[in-house]
């Protein structure tokens, strides 16, 4: 059983279950998941080994119509399998809590970013660049993003799988501060990713994607300049999203 657990765990933690990681939040989450994989393998192999053993060992021989041993229970055993799992899950809860605090910790120099979703389109706004808007998301690498969410019609959900972070965008009224519409994430790999809407939002939900480009600070600044110029040139038309 133990051998199975060890072998199973060793094999299973080799996989990148969640796919490529590209944010600072990803490693703690992935590690948490690996720990869970090991624990689960342990629990699952106990159950399966016992199970297989019981079926193999106690299978009725043909013609055996007798009854099994009249065992009604065993208090110690029952307490054990109540208490031990409780401890395991409480450990899991504590550990998850720590990870949660960790991935939600805020940096001082975070870059504000406004994300607006509507059927079926994403718009990104850069308050630091005079409210420049784009429908492609460009962000600098290694800088925390302070993402502010807004939904104009129905519920949508922001997810970049490589960043591991997901949050729904919820239509809010005037008051609005009852919705937790802010999260942080720190991309730390350059590259092009895909932003996926993960909350069913209607006919175009399937195709409600946006391109995410994580680039160096210089490239990002360059991009901002280009965008600003393009916008000025086109009279604020082409790349600016119709937003509200």
């Amino acid at each position, binding site marked *: 059983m133990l051998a199975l657990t060890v072998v199973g765990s060793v094999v299973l933690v080799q996989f990148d279950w969640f796919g490529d990681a590209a944010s600072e939040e990803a490693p703690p989450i992935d590690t948490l998941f690996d720990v869970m994989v090991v624990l689960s393998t342990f629990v699952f192999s106990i159950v399966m080994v016992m199970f297989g053993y019981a079926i193999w060992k106690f299978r009725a021989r043909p013609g055996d119509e007798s009854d099994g041993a009249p065992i009604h229970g065993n208090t110690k055993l029952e307490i054990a399998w109540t208490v031990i799992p409780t401890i395991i899950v409480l450990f899991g809860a504590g550990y998850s809590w720590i990870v949660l605090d960790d991935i939600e910790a805020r940096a001082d120099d975070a870059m504000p970013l406004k994300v607006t979703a509507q059927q079926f389109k994403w718009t990104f706004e850069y308050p630091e660049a005079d409210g420049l808007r784009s429908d492609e998301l460009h962000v600098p690498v290694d800088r925390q993003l302070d993402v502010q969410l807004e939904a104009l019609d129905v519920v949508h959900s922001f997810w970049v799988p490589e960043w591991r972070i997901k949050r729904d965008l919820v239509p*809010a*009224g*005037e*008051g609005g501060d*009852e919705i937790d519409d802010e999260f942080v994430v720190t991309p730390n790999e350059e590259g092009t990713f895909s932003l996926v809407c993960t909350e069913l939002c209607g006919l175009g939900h399937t195709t409600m994607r946006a391109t995410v480009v994580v680039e160096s600070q210089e490239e990002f600044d360059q991009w901002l300049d280009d965008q600003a110029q393009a916008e000025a040139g086109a009279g604020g038309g082409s790349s600016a999203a119709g937003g509200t």
Partner: protein
Amino acid sequence: MESASVAVGQAEPHEHHGPPEAHQSSRIDRQTLGILLFIVTEAMLFGAFFASYFFLRVVSNEGPWPPEGFELPVAVAGVNTAILISSSFTVHWALEATRKGNRRGMQMGLMTTWLLGSTFLFIQINEYIHIGFSGRDGAFGSIFYGLTGLHGAHVLVGLLLLSFANIRAWRGHFGPKAKDHLGVEVPGIYWHFVDVMWIIVFTVVYIL
């Protein structure tokens, strides 16, 4: 009641092959337990609307409550509350009378309860007509009509049950034995629930 038992009595001599009498494994009878559980369900239905009320008023509402421009006729509703509460007493009276075999008292009690309940409903509808806003007016309108309307629907159901009890009472049913007056007792329990629920709705919607 007489006629009913006679009818059953006559059927008996024919070869009657029916189920065995079920064993009564609890002190409480089926009908009473049934109505109590039904009340649990009903209370939870109100719970759903109170949950909505909580979100609309406490979570997502910024300004005063009721919002500006909305005014509730608390005094009229207060009188109406008194009417409904008194009907709880009359239905209790009807049950007591039934228990004592006081046919007249039972009939009067049930009738008064029915009339009081109808008056309540009438005043409530009248209030809707004159209140000056509809369920489309903001979240306040929605939840106001949601809660009071849900309660109104329960009054209607209660009145329906009481109508049955009234009809049966006037047609000579019910008697002092416990199993002969379930038809008064069960609607009565439901009616008490409708009253208690109104006190909660009234307090939450009109006063708090």
